[in-house]
């Protein structure tokens, strides 16, 4: 009885303890503690892990969660532990993260720079650290030192962990040791200069290797067939490089009249093969033969004679050219398609040398052409060549058998249930009655697959069965739809600096959505467009566990971050400002939010400008709502381009902030606020029109703008148009000292014409009203015309009304017309011809004077950011005292 009670008590205890420790059955999680997480936010981590307070715990889900989170690539281990007290099931997640390399410290290097060592070790600050790499690093640096002549170099590395975050400092200490130094170099004097080692240098194996390669190249250029240089010997500081030049090859040609020996040498491959073997000579003979045949010498004969001495191998190619045969004409018989159409398919031309190889290729082109038209049984029957000895020509007659033209009679779609047959048939873009063409059918199949991939049917398969009978084809597209997959977790990897939010906000396919493969491709393009990543890959992952969740697949986004900082220098030349320079420093990923901050300075003989700018691509987390702010300090001098006399000086300090929004890919609207503090000094008396033209004034304005842009290329458009309007309203309500309303518009059109030439046309205009009961606006706000971007026969800002001393004063209204023909000539070089016309008037009541026209031409040289240009414009309305025209040097098109 006692024994029974004892056994019973043990059984009860074991059962109880088992029940309390078996989380296999689903239970609700009360609390989740997370330890050791520093590299990713809690929300993102728990989302990937799929564990949160209140959720049901199943061991399978935990395992799947660990695997999903691990794919993020920043964890070494994720331990999920559980604890159950009387009431609750608690979880503890202990995360062991892959540390980031915070800093790489290199010490002890004297002869080799830190930058070079960093390149060798291929560790990068800010990248993930894997301990196994450290051993490789030591080995790499040691090998590098050995190559550089320091065989006793000792490399030791260690790491130091950061106490707060998962980051380490890598320390590499180098003891370089003594160098193997060269006291003298023994080698033939004629090539000594190619070995860049001399007395006192370390025995650098890389330099020796490069020197040997150079010497071999040098001798081979001298026609030495197989020079042997090295291997080197190093003894007691003496570096010896043995050189065995071997025999020289002399190539000679006899009997060649139509092709020069120099040209024929290019077809001889003996030098490349480094041997005068029978094979090498025979191959060269074959190539020479082919070269002649290509030029119409159909009966050419080539033979080779070889003579050898110890120092020289003479190879003489004896050529009997024969007669050159020209193609008199080519006809295709047996074809229902006229010969002129067929000749367009063939590249062989009448009157050109008769090339049999080209004729063969052209016959194949003919077959492809017929097949594409549905003549699937097309065949070439015979090729007759009739020679005409009187003028050494040949007439070719190709006889063909077309066979029946097969047309599509029936189209069937099978196996579809998600899309209707009508929808799919429409996408095929194949018509009943159209010719049966395998390329079109292949494209149609791809379009169907693309439709399915767009709706998450990632396993969709389309088989095409064609039944061809005489002239009719029945095509069946047999579809195996598979299952529609939806998107699981979006796992981000590689975004060490960039916040997850910046990537995820570009994702239009979210967890739970249908996995739209076509949209994923667009997301990838958008991520590249952010300019933050060198590489982006988006993969559709296999499910980790079996069951319903198979239809939900995680998406792994792997990015490789590029360098966010950039420093740029620029220099240029313009007719007005002469030499100009710029310096730009920017950082594109401020705080990991893709916010850009930059500083730019520009200098020239007429202006200095300093700009501090900031740009947030998503203001208030709104898509496509970029916000920008700039602080600009500028000093500008308006000068007379001929005399270089100063008309006035402007010191301006501005703050410009604004938002822009793309209402469609082509329509962009923007709203800017500008506050400027302007100081105008040294103003020539004739230029002063208003009280504000000299002295200081603050101008505050808002500028709404609208632009509709259909151009195919912003920098070098060949089609489309740019239409826009910009309003500027300055008011005391905005803290301005002056009030005005200004409007400018632009409409530029680009039309492709023949031979890649482009005809460009542009209308621009502007109108301003002072709201201060004055006729004119302050000097800095007035319109000026003339110069490289407006009316090119006039120098900068010289059109329109002038003051008492003849200096231009600008005005409140302008109109401008430009037309230009842009003709590419050769490679990136092009020419243009243009007519510009326009004028500036003081006020709307002054529009009495005529438009000023200029005509001219220029040269363009294409660069990736628009052309470099030189223009000369002639004045068509030349007045006494005017120059006849102006030259302009600049960058980018005039409009």
């Amino acid at each position: 009885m006692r024994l029974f009670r004892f056994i019973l008590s043990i059984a009860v205890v074991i059962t109880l303890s088992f029940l309390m420790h078996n989380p296999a059955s689903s239970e609700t999680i009360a609390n989740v503690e997370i330890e050791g997480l520093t590299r990713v936010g809690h929300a993102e981590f728990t989302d990937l892990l799929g564990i949160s307070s209140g959720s049901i715990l199943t061991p399978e889900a935990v395992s799947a969660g660990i695997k999903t989170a691990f794919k993020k690539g920043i964890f070494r281990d994720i331990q999920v532990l559980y604890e159950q007290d009387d009431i609750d099931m608690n979880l503890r997640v202990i995360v062991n993260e892959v540390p980031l390399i915070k800093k790489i410290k290199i010490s002890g290097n004297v002869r080799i720079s830190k930058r070079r060592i960093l390149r060798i070790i291929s560790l990068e600050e800010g990248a993930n650290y894997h301990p196994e790499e450290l051993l490789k690093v030591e080995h790499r640096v040691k090998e590098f030192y050995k190559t550089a002549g320091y065989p006793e170099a000792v490399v030791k590395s260690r790491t130091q962990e950061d106490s707060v975050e998962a980051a380490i400092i890598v320390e590499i200490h180098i003891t370089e040791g003594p160098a193997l130094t060269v006291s003298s170099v023994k080698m033939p004097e004629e090539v000594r200069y190619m070995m860049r080692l001399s007395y006192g240098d370390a025995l650098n194996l890389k330099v020796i290797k490069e020197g040997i390669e150079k010497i071999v190249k040098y001798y081979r250029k001298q026609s030495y067939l197989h020079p042997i240089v090295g291997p080197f010997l190093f003894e007691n500081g003496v570096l010896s490089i043995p050189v065995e030049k071997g025999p020289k090859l002399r190539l000679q040609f006899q009997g060649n009249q139509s092709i020069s020996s120099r040209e024929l040498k290019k077809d001889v491959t003996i030098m490349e093969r480094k041997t005068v073997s029978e094979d090498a000579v025979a191959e060269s003979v074959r190539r020479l033969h082919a070269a002649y045949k290509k030029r119409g010498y159909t009966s050419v004969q080539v033979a080779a004679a070889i003579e050898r001495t110890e120092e020289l191998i003479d190879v003489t190619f004896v050529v009997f050219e024969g007669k050159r045969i020209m193609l008199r004409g080519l006809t295709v018989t047996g074809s229902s398609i006229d010969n002129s159409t067929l000749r367009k398919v063939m590249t062989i031309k009448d009157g050109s040398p008769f090339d049999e190889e080209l004729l063969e290729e052209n016959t194949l082109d003919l077959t492809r052409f017929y097949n594409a038209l549905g003549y699937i049984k097309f065949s070439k029957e015979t090729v007759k060549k009739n020679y005409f000895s009187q003028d050494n020509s040949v007439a070719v007659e190709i006889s063909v058998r077309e066979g029946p033209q097969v047309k599509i009679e029936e189209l069937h779609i099978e196996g579809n249930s998600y899309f209707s047959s009508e929808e799919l048939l429409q996408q095929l873009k194949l018509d009943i009655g159209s010719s049966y063409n395998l390329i079109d059918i292949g494209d149609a199949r791809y379009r169907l697959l693309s439709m399915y991939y767009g709706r998450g049917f990632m396993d969709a398969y389309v088989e095409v069965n064609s039944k061809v009978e005489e002239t009719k084809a029945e095509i069946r597209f047999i579809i195996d739809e598979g299952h529609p997959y939806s998107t699981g977790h979006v796992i981000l990897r590689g975004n060490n600096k960039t916040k997850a939010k910046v990537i995820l906000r570009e994702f239009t396919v979210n967890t739970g959505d249908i996995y739209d493969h076509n949209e994923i491709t667009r997301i990838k393009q958008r991520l590249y467009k952010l300019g933050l990543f060198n590489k982006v890959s988006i993969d559709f992952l296999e499910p980790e566990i079996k069951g319903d969740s198979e239809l939900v697949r995680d998406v792994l986004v792997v990015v490789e971050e590029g360098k966010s900082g950039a420093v740029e220098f620029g220099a240029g030349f313009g007719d007005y400002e002469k030499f100009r320079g710029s310096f730009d420093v920017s950082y594109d990923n401020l705080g990991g939010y893709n916010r850009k901050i930059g500083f730019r300075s520009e200098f020239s003989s007429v202006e200095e400008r300093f700009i501090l700018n900031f740009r947030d691509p998503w203001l208030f987390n709104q898509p496509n709502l970029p916000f920008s702010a700039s602080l600009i300090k500028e000093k500008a001098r308006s000068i007379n381009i001929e005399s270089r006399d100063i008309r006035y000086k402007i010191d301006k300090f501005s703050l410009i902030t604004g938002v822009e929004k793309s209402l469609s890919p082509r329509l962009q609207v923007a709203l800017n606020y500008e506050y400027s503090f302007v100081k105008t000094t040294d103003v020539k008396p004739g230029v002063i029109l208003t009280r504000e033209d000299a002295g200081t004034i603050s101008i505050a304005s808002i500028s709404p703008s609208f632009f509709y842009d259909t151009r195919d290329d912003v920098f070098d458009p060949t089609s489309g148009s740019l239409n826009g309007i910009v309003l500027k309203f300055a008011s005391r309500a905005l803290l301005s000292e002056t009030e005005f309303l200004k409007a400018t518009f632009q409409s530029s059109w680009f039309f492709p014409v023949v031979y890649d030439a482009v005809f460009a046309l542009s209308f621009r205009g502007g109108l301003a009203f002072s709201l201060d009961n004055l006729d004119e606006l302050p000097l800095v706000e007035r319109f000026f015309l003339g110069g490289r971007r407006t009316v090119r026969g006039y120098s900068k800002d010289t059109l329109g009304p002038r003051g008492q001393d003849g200096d231009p004063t600008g005005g409140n209204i302008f109109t401008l017309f430009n037309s230009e023909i842009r003709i590419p000539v050769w490679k990136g070089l092009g020419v243009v011809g243009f007519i510009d016309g326009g004028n500036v008037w003081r006020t709307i009541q002054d529009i009495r004077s005529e438009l000023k026209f200029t005509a001219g031409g220029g040269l363009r040289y294409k660069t990736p950011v628009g052309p470099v240009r030189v223009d000369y414009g002639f004045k068509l309305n030349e007045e006494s005292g005017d120059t006849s025209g102006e030259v302009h040097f600049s960058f980018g098109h005039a409009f």
Partner: protein
Amino acid sequence: MRKPVIINIKKFRFIGIFMVLFVCLTGHSESWDMLDHIVAVVNEEAILLSELKSAMRDNERASQEEVLNTLVDRALLYNEAKKFRLKVSTKDGNRIEEKNEIIREYIDRRVKAFIYIPLNDIEQVYEMNRNRYKGLEFYEVRDSIDDELVEVELEKKLKIHIEELRTKSSIRIQLRDDY
């Protein structure tokens, strides 16, 4: 004077045993137990403790290290198989079965397909084991001898292939013994 309380220890003997056992067996309910964690990483694939335990249930005689090594080898082979874009489908769509099938297919194509047993070798085995093939002609046993030799060769080649894969892969074992 109060009467001293005399406790009959015997009476509480079973309760005592019960309590001691309860504390011993459930004592660690105050501590944390491991549910799952990553025991090995093969390139970019994680192998979990739960997978190891499940594999050990199927292979009770092998040690934990041996089973884990087998899982690592399978992960390596599966990774390679994926590069060949092999596709198989099982009747019930079981993922584990699919993986096994893909690995089998890969071994067949990448290793087994290159094994050739010369006729002389088969004849030699036949001659040396005549007693085993009593009364059977060479042509009758040729295929089965060939199969046996292929299996032996496959085992050798597969071992070499896995070694090659191991040298060019990143493998990290992080089995813990504290849970």
